[in-house]
């Protein structure tokens, strides 16, 4: 029953913030994944394996995307490190 006590509104806000934070991270991951796939992976799909060039491109792409996330975060004044 503790769920419906006086502070339920505050608790809702906490859960709601946590939910938004998670949605944000999921969206970041999805955008990163799609963007780096577009940048690095050959689209004729002759192979189902990623080749060496694609793999190293992906690693660098993730790293650079992370840096851009931090950089834009600083500009927006959020100060959140890749988050």
């Amino acid at each position, binding site marked *: 029953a503790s769920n419906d006590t006086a502070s339920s509104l505050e608790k809702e806000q906490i859960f709601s913030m946590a939910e*938004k*934070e998670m949605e944000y991270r999921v*969206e970041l991951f999805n*955008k990163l994944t799609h963007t780096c796939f577009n940048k690095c992976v050959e689209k004729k799909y002759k192979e189902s394996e990623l080749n060496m060039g694609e793999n*190293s491109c992906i690693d*660098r*792409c993730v*790293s650079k995307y992370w840096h*851009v996330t931090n950089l834009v975060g600083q*500009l927006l004044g959020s100060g959140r490190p890749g988050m």
Partner: protein
Amino acid sequence: MDKSMLGGDMPQLSEEDNVRMSTMIDQLQIRDSLRMYNSLVERCFTDCVDTFKHKSLQKQEESCVRRCAEKFLKHSMRVGMRFAELNQGAATQD
């Protein structure tokens, strides 16, 4: 997103409901800011980063990203102003 954008004619609400409505608006603004952050990163990364010979962002890419983000934010503010004017015009016409 500007709070005034969300305005409109709301029915009379109790104190409690007002708090709830305003909480909802705050929540939507937080979600929108986070989405804007994500889409700004995606856009500026896509437009500015095209070589993957290095692991870290090159000086040139970094300044491109900075200009891209600043330009987009200025653009977004201008659109917000024009949009608000049109919204108000529509409201007075009613």
